[in-house]
């Protein structure tokens, strides 16, 4: 017998939703990209390199957002023992890590022309790096067990411990950075937000958000399929 029977309604619903969602995501991203790359004005100081922002800021936002989703799913998984919640958490983790990495990579690329160095130990940058490590730890733990359910639960506990710690880490990193105020570092002062920038930026954030939802749903579908296959193959 199947020990894992996903809510049929969830599967049917996502199967119907996904094509539309995918199309919408593509459309919004296309509009956002064209708008931000071709039609938004270059910065008078930063020239075209300002356009990195249209990828950098949405991915930073989603890197943080994905952790909240993962934490919520982990809490549900631990308290109500819903297999679907475990699958959600597992589906979210690599995406969150990817967005966080994208934020770091684009920020780094941006930093070279702006600050003359790939990396500074600025508080915000550093806490983003620690967030990436938390994602990596989560994924490593979830996959470190022969027994999959054991990995699910251990990772869920870790994720919740991480939720408590993220604000503490953020706060302590701020403190650390302001204490040793470095002389050589130019702070990433946000450029005055002009409507001509805000428009494409918000579009890109929406596009990334939709992309995230689409990808999570796809990954959840394949996670469900994998769970069913495992259940079948163990029946023999």
């Amino acid at each position: 017998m199947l020990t894992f029977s996903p809510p049929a309604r969830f599967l049917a619903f996502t199967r119907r939703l996904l094509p539309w969602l995918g199309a919408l995501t593509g459309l919004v991203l296309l509009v956002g990209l064209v708008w931000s790359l071709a039609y938004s004005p270059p910065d008078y100081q930063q020239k075209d390199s300002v356009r990195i922002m249209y990828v950098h800021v949405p991915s930073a936002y989603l890197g943080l957002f994905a952790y909240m989703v993962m934490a919520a799913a982990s809490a549900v998984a631990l308290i109500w023992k819903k297999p679907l919640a475990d699958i959600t958490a597992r589906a979210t983790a690599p995406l969150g890590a990817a967005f966080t990495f994208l934020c770091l990579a684009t920020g780094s690329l941006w930093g070279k022309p702006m600050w003359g160095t790939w990396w500074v130990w600025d508080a915000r940058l550093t806490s983003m790096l620690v967030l990436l490590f938390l994602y990596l730890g989560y994924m490593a733990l979830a996959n470190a067990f022969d027994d999959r359910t054991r990995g699910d639960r251990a990772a869920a506990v870790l994720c919740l411990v991480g939720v408590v710690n993220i604000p503490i880490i953020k706060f302590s990193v701020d403190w650390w950075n302001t204490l040793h105020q470095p002389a050589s570092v130019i702070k990433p002062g946000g450029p005055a937000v002009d409507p001509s920038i805000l428009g494409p930026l918000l579009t890109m954030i929406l596009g990334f958000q939709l992309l995230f939802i689409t990808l999570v749903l796809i990954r959840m579908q394949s996670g469900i399929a994998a769970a069913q296959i495992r259940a079948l193959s163990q029946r023999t």
Partner: protein
Amino acid sequence: MCVRGERAVFANLSFRVEAGDALLLVGPNGSGKSSLLRLMALLLHPASGRLTWDDRSVADDSEAHAARTRYVGHLDAIKPVLALRENVAFWARLAGAGTTHVDAALEAFNLTRLAQVPGRLLSAGQKRRANLARLVAAPAPLWLLDEPTTALDRASIALLEDRLARHRAEGGMVVLSTHQDIVLPGARVLALDRFAPGLARPASARPLLEPAS
């Protein structure tokens, strides 16, 4: 129903044990004997179904349930650097029984001579006897024994059978899994392979418990 590693092991199982009863769990490797015992010891949680004691669910007060059951598993929990008596005394104290019965417990399993020997020098059979001595050192009404005769020689098995009989005479209960022969007069037998969830006929339609042959 009990699910281990995303796989259902047994389902539709229902039984009760009365004072003085013994229940013998049998079935081939992997049929779920150890799983059932760990479930009853609250080391595992049932995927569905519940355990009751005097008609109250044991999950409600797991500490009280732990106090009234003793579990002997595959592993002997003997620390290599502690003397045998220290090992047994620690578990007795932890169970809240103090150390008053410890010497009697060692005597019961013929371990008095080894009391000061450190755990690392004990043979497998001696370790197993030390593990069983916890039953006597910290008395409790329900004993959950997972293949307790492993590594024991004949004389030690006789000591265990004697203890089991005495425990039941005093109104205690025993649930015991084994592959070997053990003398348990009047024990009922539960063949766990009949409750594998893949079976076509609902397992509960069959006679659940049968007297030991």
